[in-house]
């Protein structure tokens, strides 16, 4: 049985960049533990010598020229931004 404690849940939430209130951490930890326990059925499969799947259909990916095919549309790119000014995406201050 996999046990995720509230402190681990806090770390995972932070890695995922999702704010979780302290009082919600125990419930989250319980849910994650339940899901991980379900996943642990996989431990009873013999996977010795089995390659992890990379591509489900055995085909060679197509090659193409590594060149610019599109662009020059900053207005269209910025049109959906919650905050854009003077041709840039705007975010809170990153460096103090």
């Amino acid at each position, binding site marked *: 049985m996999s046990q*995720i404690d509230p402190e681990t*849940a806090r770390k*995972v*939430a*932070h*890695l*995922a*960049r*999702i*704010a*979780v209130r302290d009082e919600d951490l125990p419930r*989250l930890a319980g*849910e*994650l533990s*339940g*899901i*991980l326990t*379900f*996943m*642990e*059925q*996989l*431990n009873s*499969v013999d*996977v010795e010598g*089995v*390659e*992890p*799947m*990379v*591509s*489900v*259909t055995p*085909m060679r*990916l*197509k090659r*193409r020229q590594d060149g610019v095919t599109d662009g020059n*549309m900053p207005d*269209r*790119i910025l*049109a*959906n*931004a*919650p*905050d854009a000014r003077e041709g840039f*995406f705007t*975010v*809170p*201050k*990153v460096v103090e």
Partner: protein
Amino acid sequence: MTALNDLTISDARDGLRRGDFTALDLTNACLTAIEGAGALNAFVHPTPEVARDRAAKADARIRAGEAPAMCGIPIGIKDLFCTEGVPSQAASRILQGFRPPYESTVSARLRDAGAVMLGKLNMDEFAMGSSNETSTYGPVVNPWKIDDRQLTPGGSSGGSAAAVAANLCLGATGTDTGGSIRQPAAFTGTVGLKPTYGRCSRWGIVAFASSLDQAGPMTRTVRDTAIMLGAMAGHDPRDSTSADLEVPDFEAALTGDIRGKRIGLPKEYRMDGMPAEIEALWSRGADWLRAAGAEIVEISLPHTHYALPAYYVIAPAEASSNLARYDGVRYGYRAQLAQGDGITEMYEKTRAEGFGAEVQRRVMVGTYVLSAGFYDAYYNRARKVRTLIKRDFDLAFEAGVDAILTPATPSAAFGLGEMADADPVQMYLNDVFTVPVNLAGLPGIALPAGLDAQGLPLGLQLIGRPWEEAPLLALADVLEQAAGFVSRPAKWW
């Protein structure tokens, strides 16, 4: 006289070509039906202007005698598909207000074939769910009703399934990562096909789990699915996993002749606690195919039991990576920030407010299984098990099985809210018969085959060899004829 919106795609196509009615007549009939169906909550962004404009253009093409099969056919588009200038928010708050400046390849193909977009369809948020209850728009209600309860149409393509079942449109696009086309089709008495991975382009479809996602048609008949798939499929240089293969004439494959086909019944799908009605329906399905000249054999897919846990590692892992792009910077929702909040607080608050509970859970599970120290134990192990699951199918096909018959779902539609207090894993069990097909990249089709004792539809699933949608549809067509499923939900909305 049948109302125009009650027509199948094939009958509507024939009627349009004969000039019995116009695409605009057909479109208006659907728009009226949509206006009267608010209680179902299926169409969340209707686009009547786009629809009438496209219908007029379709009528011109039909008059000129150069109309492809889907020309003038009114359809709904799942909210997961980006549609140019039309809200496309994957039923998530985090994409509120997003209007893509581009059109997904699949919806563009349908548009170019003359299909008429009626609007965007409700779904589970980011296609994560099996009951449509995770949508930011609120749940879709199944048009099927047997008592006072409101039933789920299934998910994630629940809006598509409900709209097709309620005759609001003639067909709809769906997407299927673990059963999201086939389970809602089964819950609503409609037909839904998940093509072979790579048959339809994923470009412009909001990504959930890229190695599993496939778009497919949802319609009222197998023939309609064949027609609509023909317009959706095909190679797209913008999706590197899209297969450069010729698209066959799927409708021409419906010959009615399935003599000599060998159909496997996987013994591992006979689950403990499976309702007797589902088991009986499965046997009847095998009898119908046998009566049509197919040979029925028992087969073994020994790793079936591990498909769900492998899926619930791989899909959240890919989702956690795909959904990293929703950061409040480039599109959609951004949280209100407090004095002194920096960029990390912006990310964390935006994603906490923008994603619903199930999406947050899956992103965190995915983050965990990909994190240092757990990557091998969970993610790599799941990918190895995926190899074994695909090998099970490969061996069955190599042994001469042409297709596999299974139930589509372990139950009929359940009531909205009935699973609210259940463990998340309980909801995942809905996908037990559909998930292995995604893990193996195979085509699968769900079609209605009967009613349960309460009067709710039950579906069967046929699974085919890779790229063999055409013979799969031929089998489904014969099964559909034999089942003779003609029940429609009585209108209460």
